[in-house]
């Protein structure tokens, strides 16, 4: 690389670099660094698509920044992030299923699944989780995938810990049956 001159002289070409006026607070960056990967894993557990997961996590942080004055006052901003993420994931699924209904009526044939990031056995487990009712799936992803205690899952889902335990019980019953059937077949 050529050495940079110390002074400007006539005829010298100068490239003006305009730095975007973006204020990333240290606290926001710190939260982003610590939570990006865990949120990405939760999103992947809920969607089964890395591209969708990345988009959802980015959107979660966009909303976080938009509400930063409030979020930075929270004791557990991670719980708020998880709540936004799982709701965005649900919103996206709902929107996609609306479009899918239209496609189904058109006779369009669904294509095959995308590339998987985990092993076959684990992918099969998370695929079965995604077929659960929404609240059960969210509870399973947060409890087993994010390894949160039920109290923290409850905080992220905005419900009581007892509700989380009930949702997990229902999910375990369904999943055990579904996975057993899949393995036998």
């Amino acid at each position, binding site marked *: 690389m050529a050495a940079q001159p110390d002074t400007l002289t006539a005829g010298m070409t100068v490239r003006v670099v305009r730095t975007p006026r973006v204020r990333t607070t240290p606290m926001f960056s710190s939260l982003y660094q610590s939570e990006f990967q865990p949120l990405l*894993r939760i999103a992947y557990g809920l969607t089964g698509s890395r591209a969708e997961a990345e988009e959802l996590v980015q959107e979660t942080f966009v909303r976080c920044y938009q509400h930063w004055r409030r979020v930075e006052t929270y004791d557990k901003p991670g719980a708020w992030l998880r709540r936004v993420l799982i709701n*965005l994931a649900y*919103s996206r699924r709902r929107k996609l*299923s609306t479009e*899918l209904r239209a496609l189904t009526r*058109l006779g*369009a044939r669904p294509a095959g699944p995308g590339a998987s990031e985990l092993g076959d056995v684990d992918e099969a487990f998370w695929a079965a989780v995604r*077929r659960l009712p929404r609240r059960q799936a969210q509870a399973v992803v947060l409890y087993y*995938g994010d390894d949160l205690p039920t109290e923290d899952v409850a905080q992220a889902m905005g419900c009581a810990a007892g509700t989380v335990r009930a949702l997990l019980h229902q999910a375990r019953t369904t999943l055990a049956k579904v996975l057993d059937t899949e393995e036998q077949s």
Partner: protein
Amino acid sequence: MTDFENRARSAGAALRDWTPDGSAPTPDTAVRRAVHRTRVHRATAGGLMVAVLGGVGLLWGPTRGDDVRTSPATSTDDVTTTTEAPDPTTPTTATADPDPGADPAEPVGTTTPTTATPTTTAPPEEPASTSCTGQVAGTGITFTATVPAGWHTNEAAMGEPGCHHFGPQPVELRPTETEAGVGVASNAVVQLFVSQGPGVPIPFDEWVVVMAEQSNVTDFRRDTVDGHAAARLEQVTSPGDDVPEGGERYAHWIIDLGDVWFDAVTTSEPGVSYEESVAAIDQIVTSLDLTG
């Protein structure tokens, strides 16, 4: 510990051990998007203010419509869409007569804006509206719809018909996984789709009565679209439905076409305000010209 519990914990550990390869987006990426979105919202609000002030100025100014003389659009044989005449209260916009050669039976879902040639030297113009043609799935009904000025619609692809997705950015369709397999997603803000196929389970008139009484419906009215019974409603989600705070707003049109109901839906999406989305969906739906 049961076999299931072992398997669940193993799958959980696998998910936590997963380290995505490739570079991850930085915090600045999220911040830029947030800042951009805020600016777009402010610009939209500012634009509305300018429009209001401009309207006031016109009321106090000279007679409307006398300021500028414009020429009709030129058209080519293969154009299937038209450029609409703009609002006469916008004197600097070039107008274009609808192309009389446009054939609604042209291939479904194509959009080609007609060239408009201004004859006056005027400030930079607002983009003109275009229109597109589509088909109501499962029926022999075709339609034309106005694409709002500066907006885009989709071409037919991946089994998805054209003229069904609309947005302020060029509309891209992409396959994506859903709970029922793989569907098609898009970056569109307004979507058209068939919500009830043949054998509609509830008469439209009964459904209208039920919907009008829903607590989360903030605005409801019966209407007609090209002579067909229709309903327009706006809803707001409750806390926990969408974002934790709730408050996500949706605008929805439902048109009773007899055997099927044809719907349009929109909500606030990144880069476009809810108000702009609602203005767009209203323009698209009320412009529908249904044939067959």
